[in-house]
């Protein structure tokens, strides 16, 4: 279990990195924390000719609060998201999710940008991003663009990112403040999530009644569940939301669970996340 041959590049500036990607296109992969890429290299599930290590690029490690969003530089680690006071204040759901990713040593090195670009359909960040109405900023030598989370994730390990682009930052909406719920099912501490539910809703006073229910682990990409959102928005009924979500998806079965079992997990996670969100919206602390 050793990585296959590749050429290693360690650009010191973003421009240099973008030039490399422009040159090598599909033959290159971007290495940030490496906590997803290197296991794939070791298992030889990835065979890039060129590896572009962006960790030495300055200026991608910021957490920056805007008016109703928080921008997170691509190289911000899960650990920083777990411990940063601004994140805790403005994005408590993100803080919660960060702490559930892998193990401490993984969180020390793994990055938000890397995880989003990797687009594992059961990972935490994509679901959180979707729930918090986030977007992804990408740069290439020809410019910058911002893509909504709902358009960014295309399929398993597949995103709207072009080969010449780098995910430079992600932006999480912070307007849902404290009205959130997050629940994921892991077999053991640190395991990949089987099913993740992330729920955010607007304040009761907000007439929009906006409610977002995002799920990971149920399809080839993170998805929102309109049926569950409607059940929550209309009746504030977590159980109805959970049932709606369970009925909305037919996740593929594998060694970690059959389709029927995964549907039950969807029910459980949505029920828990939705209950948390409504409890918080009511100004109370959820159990547990």
């Amino acid at each position, binding site marked *: *279990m*050793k*990585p*296959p*041959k590749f050429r290693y590049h360690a650009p010191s500036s973003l421009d240099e990195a973008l030039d490399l990607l422009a040159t090598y296109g599909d033959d290159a992969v971007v290495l940030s924390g490496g906590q997803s890429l290197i296991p794939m290299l070791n*298992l*030889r599930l990835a065979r890039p000719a060129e590896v572009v290590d962006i960790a030495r690029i300055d200026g991608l490690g910021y957490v920056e609060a805007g008016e109703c969003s928080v921008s997170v530089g691509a190289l911000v680690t899960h650990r920083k998201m777990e411990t940063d006071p601004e994140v805790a204040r403005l994005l408590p759901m993100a803080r919660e999710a960060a702490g559930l990713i892998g193990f401490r040593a993984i969180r020390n090195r793994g990055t938000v940008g890397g995880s989003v670009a990797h687009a594992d359909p059961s990972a935490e960040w994509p679901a959180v991003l979707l729930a918090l109405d986030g977007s992804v900023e990408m740069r290439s030598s020809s410019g910058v663009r911002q893509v909504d989370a709902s358009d960014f994730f295309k399929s398993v390990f597949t995103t709207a990112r072009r080969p010449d682009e780098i995910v430079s930052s992600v932006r999480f909406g912070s307007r849902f403040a404290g009205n959130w719920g997050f629940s994921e*099912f892991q*077999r*053991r*501490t*640190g*395991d*990949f999530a089987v099913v993740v539910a992330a729920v955010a809703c607007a304040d009761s006073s907000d007439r929009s009644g906006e409610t977002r229910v995002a799920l990971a682990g149920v399809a080839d990409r993170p998805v929102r569940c309109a049926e569950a959102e409607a059940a929550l928005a209309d009746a504030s009924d977590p159980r109805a939301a959970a049932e709606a979500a369970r009925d909305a998806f037919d996740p593929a079965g*594998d*060694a*970690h*669970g*059959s389709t029927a*079992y995964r549907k*039950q*997990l969807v*029910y*459980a996670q949505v*029920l*828990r996340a939705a209950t948390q969100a409504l409890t918080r919206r009511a100004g109370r602390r959820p159990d547990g």
Partner: protein
Amino acid sequence: MSAPEPRLFGARVPRVEDDRLLKGQGRFVADLDFAGSLYAKFVRSDESSSDIFDFDVGKALACEKVRAVFTGDDFAGAEIRCVSAYEGFQTSSQPILATDRTRFAGEAVAMVVAEDEYAAEDAAEDVFFSVLPLEPVAGLDDALGDGREPVHAGWTGHAFVRRSMATGGFERVAGSAAHRVTIELRNARHGAIPMEGRACVARYDRGSGLFELWTTTQIPHLIRAGLADALGVAESRIRVISPDVGGGFGVKAQLYPEEVACCLAARELDRPVKWVEDRREHFFASHHSREHRHQVTGYFDDDGVLTALEADIAVDMGAYSVFPWTSTMDCGMAMGILPGPYRVQEYSVTGTAYCTNKAPYGAYRGVARPAACFSIERLIDRIAKHRGIDRAEVRRRNLIGPGDYPWHSPSGLVYDSGSLPESLDKVLEASGYDRLLADQALARAEGRLFGIGLAVFTEQTAHTTREFQQRGVPIVFGYETAKVRLDATGTAVVSASIHDHGQGLETTLAQIAADRLGLRLEDIRVEYGDTDQVAYGAGTFASRSAVLAGGAVVKAADAVGDTLRQVAAHRLEASPADIVIGQNRLSVSGSPGAFIETAELCRLVYQRPESLPRGVEPILEASRTYDADPGTGVYTNAAHLASVEVDPLTGKTIVLSYAIVEDCGPMINPTIVEGQIFGGVAQGIGTALFEEFVYDDEARLLTSTFSDYLIPTMTDIPDFAVDHLETPSPHTIGGLKGMGEGGAIAPGAAIASAIEDALSPVGDAVVAELPLTPERVLALLNRAQQQGDQR
């Protein structure tokens, strides 16, 4: 003559091996770096059963840094065969590299040898061959049916062997029993999975014709014996060394084809050849264990007393019979121990070891006893339920009592001693049973699923010659050997045929030797794992090393002590019988002033031979063997109690508490004993809740990483409560009993019992399959719900 007073036996002394391991100074096989080493990578089959042909190694050979590529034909003269003496045994022979047929997914078909591991792995991808997948015997369902060709040519049916036995009164007692229940139980295939995988380095010296194999093994002498067979060379031409080993638990107690292949390649290439298994290979090709299916029927009276027991045992032993155990081990063990700690006297059993296209099956801590314990304990719980008797009470009515020893089990085992009812009562105490019941009442009032489970068992340990003779294995494992040598500075080297890979034997044997020789712990160095150190022995497995090596150390140390006494008596003008050994000196009993320092005496023996009494040779060394009578084992017993909570939404089970009361006789070092128990229980919790090799319908392994094959993490294991009883064996030196495996035996049974209890307010669902994954528990909960609705 008085024996030296034990000073270290029973003491919780810190381990002598810890410093080097804590500082990163341990020496594991993967750490070895011999000059000129080459590195091997094995190409493995993706298919289970397939024809393979048209090998093309040209591209691989042309790769940078590649020195050789071997395929099956290159090693065709060598094979691993292990034939049981049981009547009707159908045998297999395992090629070192598959030649024209693969028989399990992960079987090695080619070996690439290169200047470094990276280059070897690159070139391994360039070995090409054609594959024609065949219909496999994908598991027990296929093996029990008759639609598939046997795995090996010339076989009749799919069984390595089938055996039956019944007591004379079985039919009569079973036929007249007031009640009976039958359950079918399944234990998933899983394995030992030590944190260090396998590894070996082979060297061959052309001048002397000597093979030297450094390998991660628990059984160096047996590996030497197996290699001698496979290589066709004399044992005197093979040295097997097993240095620090990162856990074994049984999976490193078999000879593997890679060990033979590295020896052959080293001879061919005249360079050291090193192979370090990667984790995926470990999952695919290191031996698996535990896959049992039992159908068990209990016959009992109104009081819940079990009067007869009937069992049909099937074990999926995979593709090949393994050396040195054969493929009969698990089945035989299960047949023997199934009646367990209970007084049942009538027994009828059939056991079949099946051959399938899965990875070969070897030893894993507990060998068949976890499945046997699961079966009998689940049965006892069923009887309790049937009769409406408390689970602890039904056990009390059936357990072998203190007055029953020696107990002749209906399968022919003789239990030497034990404390079963006492251990049961004590575990209720140690677990805070009353508090647990109060917690449970509270939880149930809140609608939570909180359960308590119990399991009691006997652990056959330190079984020796007679037992292994009966098992029909080609090499009968009996005695172990120890050599004790005092040097001229008054310190000792103890060499042993057992191996220590975490069990603390380096310390416990030193404790024993220090006591017998009257020295301090730091005066003793224990060495093991090198066939050049002692003549012969079987190694470390089957909860036997402390008993057998401990006994051998006592005998060897005492033999050396006799010489010391003779010389000291001569020196001090006393009778040898009056010489007392202790505190680094030899003194005359009753004359505190008359003594000689041990170091001084040792110096005299070696360096002043003229001062020795007539007839005493200038050597302080003795080798002794110890083969514990009567040979069928000495019996440790224990009771385990678990409490769990089940998440009704996901089926996930949390183990809240776990208590153990164990009686392994006198303990040499209780801290080490507890460590062995805790480690075993954690593995047993893996058996109960997590671990499973999942194969698809074509017998391809689906769980080949640590994200698919789940071993318990720190948050999956609770704090333990432990207490001890110490009933000495009447048979062994020091009354010692083995205990290395015990912890792993009962958790499956105890946790299943707890989960069944947790679900019981909802309804009755028989918990009979391990592991209890969340999905399975949820299915049980649904079943309980349906049953409850019908009530």
